[in-house]
Structure formats: C-alpha cells, structure tokens
C-alpha cells in the first residue's frame, strides 16, 4: 500500500472524470448537444442484491443535456468541478464539500446557488465514474464518529508518518476519532482483540458505556453512530466486519427513525444506494431497544406522534424491512403506540444497562 497504489487510485479517478470532458468535447465536435446519462437516485430505482444482501441502485438513468438552461449549467459545473479535482490531485490537497461550494463562487455561470447542489453533483460524479468522492479529494466537513475498545489502528498522518494507536489505551475518554478517509491508504487495523462491536446511536449512551467500562467488561468495541452515521463510520464498521470478522450489533432508541439508522448500517441507504456494496454490513444485528423490550423491561415511554406512525407504516412497505423480525417489531410498536429512548433504561439505575440489559440481550445472541 505504497505511494504508487495511491497515485493509481487518484489517477484512475481522474481518468474517468476526464472521460466526461472528452465526451462533451466529442459531442460538440459532432454537432450534437452535449449530454450525459446519470443513474437515477430514487426509491423507485433501488433493488436488492440477494447475494450480498444489500440494496443497490437499479438500472434506470436520467439524461442531463445542454438543451435547457438548468441542466446545461449542471454540465458546465461538472467541468469546473472536474478541473478543481484535477488541480487538487496535482497539488496533493483536498477540500471539504463546503469549501468546494465556496470555491464555486469564482466559477462565473457555473457557480452553485446552494450547497446541496454541489454535494449532490459530487455524488453524481461518483455514480458516473464509479470512483468515491474521497478519490476526488472531497470530504464532508463533519468529523467522523468515535471508537473505544481494544483494537489497534495504523493511521497515516498529515506528514505521511504512520501512527499506531490503540483505541483503548492510547486515547482519552472520547475515544479515537474516525477520519473522513478510512481507506487502506489512510487507515488500517493491525491488532483486533474484541469479540464484537456495538454501534450506539446516541452520545449519551456511548458515554454511559464508556464510563461503566463496558468495552473491557464485554470485550467489545464501542462505536458511536452519531445519529444517521456518516459514510466513514459505516465504512469502518464494514471493514472491521469483513476484514477482521468482528460481529456487529446495533443499539439504538426504540422508534421508527432509529430503525432506519439500523437499516442504513445493515442494508444501505437510498441516497447512497450505489455505495451499498461498499458501505453496508448485512450481517449486522439489531440488539435493541425493541418494541418488545419496552414491555418486558417496562420502560418509560412517549406516545407515538402522527409522523412516527406514518414512518412506521412506510417501513411496512419498505423492501428493506420485509423480514419477520421487523414486521413483528413494527406492528408491535404500532399496537402499543409507544416509543422509548435508550436512556430510559436509567429508570433502574445507571449500571442497569451494562449489568443487566445488555448482558441479557447479548447473551441471547451468544455474544456474552
């Protein structure tokens, strides 16, 4: 995994980007109207890859042509973005998506009017080229989530030196922060001494498990998801699961939105369905809090809102939730008309989650 491999990776991305420019050029030279086909990113265009167990993008595409003002602008922006990436690769720099949005102020007619336009165009380019935005030297501005547990990470720092970090011993209470690029040129896992990893939705619960020393108690890697997990977080989970055979469980609130967090970790998200193969961990299991937990542990609850019920009903239609387990969970939740937070377990004391709840649940799964 030397410099050369790196170079190749960027070179490849660059080449496929330049193909777009070449395509426009040739279309113009032939007297045609420049255009490009982009796979359609929508709910109607995702399909299950049965072999891999992830939801991927389907075959339908959208044509973007210079025939009208809006899309001709997008084509021009594509070229400007391409040139920016060219420059960044040449100069060994990277930029955040937000920075790119600001850089576009100098792009004349190709300027973006909102950041979601530039974010979305970056995703389009990934789609068309098959490369990742990291290959384009673009990264999200939010930092990655945190890890605590007995694994050792080798990370290449800014200076190009390799740092070896044990995620239990060499870090503070907030753990090891996952960088935006977690590919093998940047991050590798050398020593993995955990039995499983537990991905936790909320910061409060993550900190509770850290304080209670659950990582050592259960010999587990604690991963903070920070709500809907960032790509890098999902990628780390996927790599640890695949490369190091670490079983994955997901621990969230008991509400319809948390169910979707699980789905994006396990099966893939709609917006990034083209990356599912690379981001989703189909072996991940849901540990809780389940709707049945609400009853069996008699947890403090809130009533479902109208939106909650709607979300649950949509989930009943969502192909990703079409399993016996989820059907029952969703229907039970609709039945009892209640939801609960992870921290509701504190009703029985601060240690209850680590002393009783998780050991019981993980025990059932054979992980403790």
């Amino acid at each position, binding site marked *: 995994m030397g410099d050369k491999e790196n170079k190749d990776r960027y070179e490849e991305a660059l080449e496929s980007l*330049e193909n777009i420019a070449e395509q426009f*050029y040739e279309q113009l030279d032939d*007297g045609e109207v420049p255009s490009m086909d982009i796979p359609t990113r929508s709910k109607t265009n995702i399909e299950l890859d049965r072999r891999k167990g992830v939801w991927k993008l389907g075959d339908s595409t959208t044509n973007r042509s*210079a025939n009208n*003002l809006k899309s001709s602008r997008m*084509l*021009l922006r594509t070229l*400007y973005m*391409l040139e920016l990436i060219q420059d960044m690769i040449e100069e060994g720099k990277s930029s955040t998506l937000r920075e790119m949005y600001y850089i576009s102020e100098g792009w*004349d007619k190709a300027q973006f009017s909102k950041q979601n336009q530039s974010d979305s165009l970056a995703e389009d380019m990934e789609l068309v080229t098959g490369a990742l935005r990291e290959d384009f030297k673009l990264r999200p501005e939010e930092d990655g989530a945190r890890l605590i547990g007995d694994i050792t990470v080798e990370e290449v720092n800014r200076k190009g030196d390799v740092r070896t970090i044990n995620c239990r011993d060499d870090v503070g209470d907030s753990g090891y922060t996952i960088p935006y690029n977690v590919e093998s040129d940047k991050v590798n896992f050398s020593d993995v001494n955990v039995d499983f990893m537990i991905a936790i939705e909320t910061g409060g619960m993550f900190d509770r498990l850290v304080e209670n020393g659950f990582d050592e108690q259960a010999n587990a890697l604690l991963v903070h998801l920070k709500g809907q997990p960032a790509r890098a977080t999902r990628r780390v989970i996927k790599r640890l699961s695949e490369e190091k055979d670490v079983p994955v469980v997901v621990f969230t609130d008991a509400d319809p939105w948390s169910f979707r967090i699980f789905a994006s970790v396990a099966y893939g998200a709609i917006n990034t369905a083209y990356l599912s193969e690379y981001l989703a961990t189909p072996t991940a299991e849901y540990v809780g809090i389940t709707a049945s937990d609400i009853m069996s542990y008699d947890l403090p609850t809130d009533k479902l809102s109208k939106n909650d019920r709607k979300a649950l009903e949509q989930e009943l239609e969502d192909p990703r939730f079409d399993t016996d387990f989820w059907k029952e969970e969703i229907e039970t939740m609709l039945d009892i008309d209640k939801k609960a937070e992870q921290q509701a377990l504190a009703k029985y004391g601060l240690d209850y989650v680590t002393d009783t709840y998780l050991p019981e649940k993980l025990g059932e799964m054979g992980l403790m």
Partner: protein
Amino acid sequence: MASIAEKLADKQQEISVGEFFERNKHILGFDSLTKALVTTVKEGVDNSLDACEEAEILPEIKVEIEEVGDREYKVAIEDNGPGIVKRKVPEVFGKLLYGSRFHEISQSRGQQGIGVSAVVMYGQLTTGKPTKVRSKINEKDYANEMKITLDTKKNEPEVLNEEVVLWEGKEHGMRFETTVKGLLRRGKHSVFEYLKNTAIVNPHAKIEFDRDGDKTVFKRATDQLPEKPEAVMPHLKGIELGTLAKMAKNADRRTLKSFLKNEFSRISYSKAEEICEEADIDPKTNPSDLEVEDHKDILNAAEEVKLMSPKTDCLSPIKGMLIKKGLKNVLKGNHPEYYAPPTTRDPNVYSGNPFQVEVGLVYGGELEKEGPVKVLRFANRVPLLYKKGGCATTTAIKNIDWRIYDLDQKGGKGMPSGPAVILIHVASTRVPFTSEAKEAIADIPEVIDEIEKGLRECARSLRTHLNKEKKRKKVKKKFTVVNDILPMIAKKSAEIIGEEPPELDRSLTKIMGVVYIEEESSWEDGRCKMEIEIMNYTPKERDMELFFEKPYPETELLSSNVEPDHEGDHLEWKIEDLEPSETRTFSIEFDGDLEKDDLDGTDIYIEGVGETKLIGAEPLPEDWDIELTDIEEED
C-alpha cells in the same frame, strides 16, 4: 329608415314634424344631452364619409366643437367631399327624410340615422339658431353659403340668407355649423370615442377633432379606398310589409308579374308566376291596385316558393390588413403585444338579407388588464356606442368559453376579462337592429353564429400567440445556454483534454430550433430608425421573405442597408441562403411625420418559415396577396 319614414308619412297629415320629432326623440338619438351631441356629430360625419366614398375621394374630415353657453355648443363639420349642388342644399338640410333611399338597398352608413336635417331641427328647437351650410362643388367655382331653418309645420326648408363666398384652400367639400344644446363628455359615450372608433374602421379617412382648441388628429393609415358597396334590389324574402306596400303603390310596372321580376332581386318571370299562383293573385293585376291582404299573401307565398338566395357580393367589408391598420392607428399608444389576424367571414344571409361579419382582436401590452375586455361594435362602419348589453355581439362573446383560449372568464360564462380589445363589424344591406333607435344588433341566430365563428378564429390565433410567447420565453432562456453556457462548456472541455475549442454552430442550432426575429426602433423628430435582426437558429440553410408594413401611405423610406425587392405600402426583402446560426440585419430609416409609437415589431411578417419555428414575427397574413396583385395590376 323605411319604417320611420312610413310612420312619418302616415302621420304627416295629422301632426307636424316638430311634434313628431318631440315624440320620437329617443329613436332619433336626441333623448339625452350627451347623446344629442354625439348624434349631431355622427349624422354629419357619416354623411361626409358616405359622400366621399361615393365620389371616390379620400376623406378628410374636421369636427369642431366649441362651448358657447351653458350646455350650448357650436358644432362644425367639414369635409372634402363632392359638395351638394346649391338647389339641393335646402332640401338636404331643411326637410326631414329628404334623402332616404327606398328602392336602392345598399350597405351604407346613412341607414343608421334620420338624416342631417334632424340635426338642423334639433338645433333650432333647442337654441333657436339656424344652421349655416357651405358647399363647394368645383375647384374653380365659388362656394355657396346659406343659413337654413326648418318649417316644422310643413316640413319645408326656409333659407334665411344666401351668399356666394370664396372658399380658399378647398377644392370641393361641405361645411355646416349648427348650435345645439348638449353636454360634452369624455368616456364611453363621448364624441371622442365615436370619432376614435370611426377612425378604426375607416383607416382611409383622416379625421380631425378640435374641442375648444384642443386638437386630436387621427391620421390616414391607408390610401386604399373601400370598395364601393353595390346597390341591389331588395329580396322579397327579407322585406317588411310596409315597404312592399309602398313599393307596390309607387311601381312603374303595370303587372304584378313584371313588378316582381324587375323590382326584386333573384326573381325570374317563371318564379314570379309561381309566386302569383301560390298567392292566388292574377299575375296581370296592376301592382298599385293590390290590397293589404294581397301584400300579405305575396309575402307568405315568397316563403313557400323556393327563391334563390340574395346576392351577397354587394357588401364591402373592411378586410383584415386594413382592420389591423385601423386598430393600430388608434391603439398604438398602448403598445399592444399582439394583433390577431382579423377575420372577414364569408357573406351569409338572414331572412333574405345579405350580411357579413368581421372580427379583430388586440391583446396585451399596456391595454387595461383589469375588468372585462373592451368591445368595439360597428354596423356598416359606424360605431355603436349604446345598448351593449342587448346586442348580438355581446351574446356571441358570452356564448364562448374563453378560458380555452387563455383569457380569464369567471366560470366560463359572461364577458371575458383581461388586456384585450375585440372589434366586431357587421355589414349588411339591412343591419338587423333591435329597435328603430339602431343602437344594437338583434339576436338573429345566423348573425350570432357568424360573429361567434369570427371570434373563435381570432381567439385561436390569440391562443397560438400566447403559446408562442411561452416558447419565446423558453427560447430567450436558451439564449443564455447558447451564448454563455455552451461556449464555456466547449472551452472548458477542450482545456481539460488539451484541444482547441470545437465549432459550436451545429450544436447550437439543435438546441434552439427556431428562426428568431428581434427588432429595435428609435425615434427622433418624425424620423424612425428600425433594426431588424433575423437569426437562423435551425440546423438548415433557409430562404425566406421579410415584409414590413409601413404605418402610413406617406411614410417614406429614407435609407435601408439592404435594397428592398419591393417598395409600396409595404417593404419586401428576399432573404436567400441564411446559414445555420447566421444573423442578417436590416437597418431601415423612415421619414414622414412619424410619431414615437408608429413603428413596432407587430408590423414585421415572414414568409417561408413554418409558424411553429418562427419566433418574434408573424407569418404573412392570407389577405396580403390581394394587395400584391393590386399593385401588379397598377404597374
């Protein structure tokens, strides 16, 4: 006219014309002070226009109104017509119903008033003043001037003083001055509105209005005189009982058979016999011996017997291009964005009377956006200002669901609203008025149907135009694509792959797909410059013709960067081999006392480009051909 005339004739023995006038003020158009003034002007102007056309003179009419006392006005109307011979002047101005035409039936304005003598009488009754008339019939002659009043008991003229005067600067013409009680208003029912509307349907006339020194001139927009309407015999099917009685009484023919054959249109001897047989009257009967019952039988027989429809080629419509010119002449200050090609329907017949409908529609620009569309109604080129609600024109408009033509209309019923002006002209040898006041057209199904069809034709053009406007906006947006974005795409993509930027013309024309016309005009001191750019944004090389209609006959072409292939009332250029993405520019300069709003893009026409591909100009209207052949004949 016939029925008022009969009434008058019947009653003449019993009551004086003065009394008759008093009782029938509402019919004669003198029932309110405002209306009296309009009627005064109208009787004079209608006569002037009729007389000029008859003598084939391009009319030049002056109307002067001066306030001379409390609700008292001096009205003068002057024309450049043939004038009236001296001995006839007293009769025309001083004898009620002198000029009414009985046997002759034609599309004339005169149908619509009682005659100018009624004005003389009105003035005399309300102010006690006589009417001063001046007439000149020959350039080398003196003019005659006399003051006239009317003996209301005997219906005879009285000439007060007579003079011979030199009328300098006038070859021939008429002028009369009368003083009347009245009220001069602005707005819908005003003299101004009447003159303005008269100017619209008489684009060959120059009309000057001087209101207490405040002058308005409606310029002549064409020097094409209207075709003379042909006088025809009445058709037996459309005639009123009274008229038949009158004709029979005065007939020159000695037998009913020859009376029918010779004094009515489309009756042969055999048809005449058939009618007599059906009516069970001896064809040899002297027509003057017929009784009222016989007249009725003859009319009933006419219904039974199959008669040929009356001739319809005796009418003289205004016709498309001239309607547009007239409308534009008066509306140009509102900068309307669109003149629908006016429709002239084929002549049709209602109960034995030929009639013909014309419709025009103007849309957008600075026309009033709020409220119902404005309707201009005309019968035989005379504006109808009153009784709009009870008019066939209104019925026809309300019959249409205007929403399908992109005009607003609440619930698809009633008057449409929006920035539009609708013109409706009904020409007929006998316009079917609702009443003898002749202010509105009756709801005759055939007439309504024709109006409706004319309206729909214009409305369809409007819809097409509005769709094209939408397209124009889209195309405008595409200008940014082809002018800014596409070149940038070309430059950037070439830069990235290290090539020279590619040629863009073919791609660019594929994106646009239209022939785009843009014009700009500037005005200074009666001179007008216009720049017309024609851009071929289609992938094909094209030939076409450009036409530009001059606003006035006296408009003079000062210069043109490209020599026109024809110059007359319009200019014409042949454009050959206009390559894809090529632009050709025509810079033309006009002189001839032009005003700021005289020239605009609505006068540009293009022949040879499909309507859907043509943006920014209209295709050549169909009736243009008529003018072309006319010109060739003159040459």
